């Protein structure tokens, strides 16, 4: 008699559909879709907060994030086709500039531009030799954070030292390290 009960259940379901009617309504059908809060969708860069430190690039699980330095600009780009939406970039970003939004309708066809998410940051030039080596915003942020967290009595001298070496590329810092004398050993 189990078969009769399954027929009875079939009749009970006749007028009770459970379908979520996607993509009815406005297209894309966000109104009719079931989006749990905290859904990990497409990552987005906040252009004001991102400093171009490329911590996310180092942390990316699948190599979807990459960066290119050219023409005095650092371009960080995320290839959505390789992104796992794991959230490690959001976790590691020191400026909280990468956030995973709740967008999930990401289908794209051949040759369309919808597959990359990009952000550009301007590179600073070395004040000695002129080669671009690090983003301007990153250097400013480093200065802010160091001065914030350091012992207040040292702030003045550290700030003066940073004026000398911060905007120089690592090669020039190496070359001029003796004459600039900014190493921390002079304080001990």
């Amino acid at each position, binding site marked *: 008699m189990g*078969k009769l009960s399954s*027929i009875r259940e*079939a009749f009970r*379901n*006749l007028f009770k559909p459970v379908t979520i009617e996607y*993509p*009815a309504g406005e*297209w894309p059908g966000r109104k009719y879709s079931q989006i749990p809060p905290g859904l990990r969708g497409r990552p987005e860069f906040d252009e004001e907060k991102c400093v171009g430190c490329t911590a996310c690039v180092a942390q990316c699980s699948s190599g979807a994030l990459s960066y290119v330095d050219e023409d005095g600009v650092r371009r960080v780009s995320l290839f959505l086709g390789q992104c796992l939406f794991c959230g490690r970039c959001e976790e590691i970003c020191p400026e909280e500039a990468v956030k995973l939004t709740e967008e999930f309708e990401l289908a794209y066809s051949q040759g369309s531009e919808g597959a990359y998410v990009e952000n550009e940051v301007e590179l600073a030039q070395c004040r000695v030799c002129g080669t671009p080596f690090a983003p301007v915003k990153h250097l400013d942020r480093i200065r802010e954070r160091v001065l914030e967290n350091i012992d207040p009595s040292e702030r003045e001298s550290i700030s003066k030292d940073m004026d000398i070496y911060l905007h120089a590329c690592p090669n020039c810092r190496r070359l001029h390290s003796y004459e600039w004398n900014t190493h921390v050993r002079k304080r001990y």
Partner: protein
Amino acid sequence: MNLATQLAVAVGVFLVAVALGNTLDYWNRKLYARMQSRLGPLFVMYRELRSLLGSSRLLQPLYDVAKLWGKQTIVPESARKGLFKASPILALLAASAAVLLTPVCGLSVLGCLDFSLIALIYLLTVVSFSWILGAAASSSPWGAIGGRREAELFLGYEVPLVVSLFSAAILARSESLCGLLNFQRRFLPIILLNPFAAFAMFFAILGKLHLKPFDIPDAEVEIVAGPFTEYSGKLLAVIYFTRMFLFYLLPAVFVDAFLSGGLFFTGILYPLNILVYLGLCFLLMFLLSAIHTAMPRYRIDQGFKFYLKYVWPVAFVGLALSIALVYMGVV
């Protein structure tokens, strides 16, 4: 009827067969979906998507056939090409001839010939046989297994089909479908006289239309697509079209043989019979869909044993009952 009227009725019967076959197939899909608590192919499409996806899915089976007609037809290199291409066409011709024989609401071209019931049974057999031959000709292991299972199931369901139709013919003392209709109009619908035969025929229809629990030859997950695996394009369109004809034929033969063809009203109310005929076809399809939805698929040995254990005895009891009723002069 003269030739012109006969041709007109023949064309009319064909159109009714296509329309009713399409609608019964759609009705089956819709009920199958609704009983699984989901919406089926939509009868009224969402307004925003009408330009892209059409305004209703009522003609979905015909859309399937039209789409398949426009696809590339691939014939596998190691198949026996003549038999491979001929068998779907043979099945379609047999089904079309069977459509001409079946009365629609009392009207038919060839249904009043003296032997139309026997010809109908033969043509239904030819449909199944040509599908088995096509499966054998496709030279693929899925076709081989599918064809073998279809042959075994064919033995299971064809005997009750023939025996129950013969029980009805014995009661009506006539081998023509018109004779069956006339007998039922004078006397009683045969389902009331011989419910065993109707029961056996109901299960034979389940097997012939490949509805669960007997959709063994089409078993998707197990043997890819069974007998029809290697068909594509125009040949597959012919197979689906034949299947649509079968969806019309078998309920129509059941209604004609056991439910007096829907002819309950006479005289001035005769056109109401159309509604009765359609209503009975849809009711029968409803019951078939309920079983199709609720049951899982049988294995081939379970399916065949089901027929042997439950359906064959009932069919033969129906035959004995018919003979007894005639012998005792009740009918």
